[in-house]
């Protein structure tokens, strides 16, 4: 059984495409088998809604009169990087105000940061811009204070260098003091185990060899439409894989881009991790075209068949020792309790499975209504340590 993207798009346009979420696919495959399901289903939707620190937006703030070459820009007190052209800045999700005491009074609260500014912008709220410059013949203005709104900015796009991590650590604490980490609060002596992927719904878990997801793939991003733009930072396709081909430790990542003006505060949410910092929760969903049975085979893997490494955040992670205390399945994680070193440990997700489920459902709806056509990747994401194969413009690529 083979289908092409063009055939699938033709079915989407006529409203005939059969679309299911990666979660709905699992019982279908159990009942009908892979071959039958691959014949019947055209598109599988995935989703994830979790903290993604490596996120931010390029904003063009518009030229004031007289013109200005901004060298320092604060948005609601949060600095945006201005070392690009005159009124372009990059606002990063984890940037905190200069006035924030950070961890001086440990653990710091980090109630506000770049992620919160992004959330306020997409919510349509006014944000205070303070800009400074040294002044030039062509850009004489040296100072500007102004309330801005997203709708008034000439251009604004989210550009996240590392999102949608394919698998991630389960964080535990073997020490006798509470830890405050980007994986949340970790209580001493294995008090809890925190994890952060949407498992069987997560985009790259459903396409473990990046057969259909790559630069150019059209996606749901922050409530709007975006694209995969590159392989993400720390993309590590060489991570160990199990017999199903699914990585058992953090592996692939995606750099993604999308128009901030289409996005919603429902799916871009400023967040604060006690003692760690500010960040952004990003909603991201990717459709998988059912080009062959292998697309279904990989996407049908359920939480009981995908595994995450348990890592101690008191010693192994901060010291970079690479020690793993064991592997646990996402089914165990989602049940609320895992076993580590013979002890029962309660689990908590930091990534919203409920949100992931909703994103996969929204994307399904967009596709079923004929509003969202699929795109093939322009080239494949690297599957080994080498550079991506820019010549692999033929689709589908070989697995």
């Amino acid at each position, binding site marked *: 059984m083979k289908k092409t993207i063009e055939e699938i798009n033709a079915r989407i346009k006529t409203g005939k495409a059969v679309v299911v979420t990666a979660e709905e696919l699992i019982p279908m495959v159990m009942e009908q088998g892979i071959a039958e399901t691959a014949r019947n289903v055209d598109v599988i939707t995935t989703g994830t*809604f*979790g*903290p993604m620190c490596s996120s931010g937006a390029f904003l063009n703030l518009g030229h004031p009169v007289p013109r200005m070459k901004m060298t320092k820009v604060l948005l609601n007190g949060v600095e945006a990087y201005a070392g690009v052209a005159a009124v372009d800045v990059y606002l990063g999700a984890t940037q905190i105000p200069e006035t924030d005491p950070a961890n001086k009074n440990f653990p710091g*609260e980090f*109630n506000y940061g770049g992620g919160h500014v992004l959330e306020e912008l997409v919510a349509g709220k006014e944000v205070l811009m303070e800009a400074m410059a040294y002044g030039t013949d062509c850009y004489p203005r040296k100072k500007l204070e102004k309330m801005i709104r997203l709708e008034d900015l000439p251009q604004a796009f989210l550009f996240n260098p590392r999102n949608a991590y394919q698998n991630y650590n389960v964080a535990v604490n073997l020490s006798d003091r509470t830890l405050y980490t980007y994986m*949340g*609060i970790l*209580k001493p002596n294995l*008090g*809890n185990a*925190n994890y952060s992927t949407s498992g069987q719904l997560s985009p790259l878990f459903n396409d473990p060899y990046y057969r259909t997801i790559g630069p150019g793939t059209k996606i749901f991003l922050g409530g709007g439409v975006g694209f995969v733009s590159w392989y993400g930072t720390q993309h590590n396709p060489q991570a160990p894989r199990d017999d199903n081909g699914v990585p058992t430790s953090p592996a692939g990542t995606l750099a993604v881009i999308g128009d901030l003006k289409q996005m919603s505060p429902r799916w871009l*949410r*400023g*967040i*604060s*991790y*006690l003692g760690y910092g500010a*960040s952004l*929760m990003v909603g991201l969903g990717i459709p998988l075209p059912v080009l062959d049975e292998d697309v279904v085979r990989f996407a049908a893997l359920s939480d009981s068949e995908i595994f995450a490494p348990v890592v101690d955040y008191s010693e192994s992670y901060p010291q970079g020792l690479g020690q793993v205390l064991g592997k646990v399945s996402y089914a165990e994680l*989602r*049940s*609320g309790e895992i076993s580590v070193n013979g002890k029962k440990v*309660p*689990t*908590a*997700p*930091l*990534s*919203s*499975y*409920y*949100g992931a*489920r909703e994103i996969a459902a929204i994307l399904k709806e967009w596709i079923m209504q004929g509003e969202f056509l699929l795109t093939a990747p322009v080239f494949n994401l690297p599957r080994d340590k080498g550079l991506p194969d820019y010549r692999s413009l033929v689709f589908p690529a070989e697995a």
Partner: protein
Amino acid sequence: MKEKMVLYFPSTVTEQPFIYYLVKDFNLLINILKANINPRKEGRIVVEISGEKTDFAAGLDFLQARGVKVFPLEQEIIWVEERCTHCGACAVICPVNALELNRTTMKIEFHGDRCVVCEHCLKACPSRAMEARY
């Protein structure tokens, strides 16, 4: 009967031993979960009171007659659902399972009756969906 509640003591009565009277004169069992006096000398305690129904009612009348205000516990800690992302980070921090991740819907549920106003959730919630109001 048994109920958790919040008692507010105006500064004029903060120094009176109300708990002693509740135990001695009204035969009530008192479990103090939390207590503090603010800089304006107003007192506030979170208690669980149990006893016979008539004793319970008489005890509360006694408190209110002397200016102590009685509030139900659920009004203390508020779950702002529209800010909640249903991530689940709070579920292992809440010591009494007042915040619970429903494993079927994968949504957070807030059971105000279980809350003991420890306030750990306020800062454990990444999207700051929990608020204290008093």
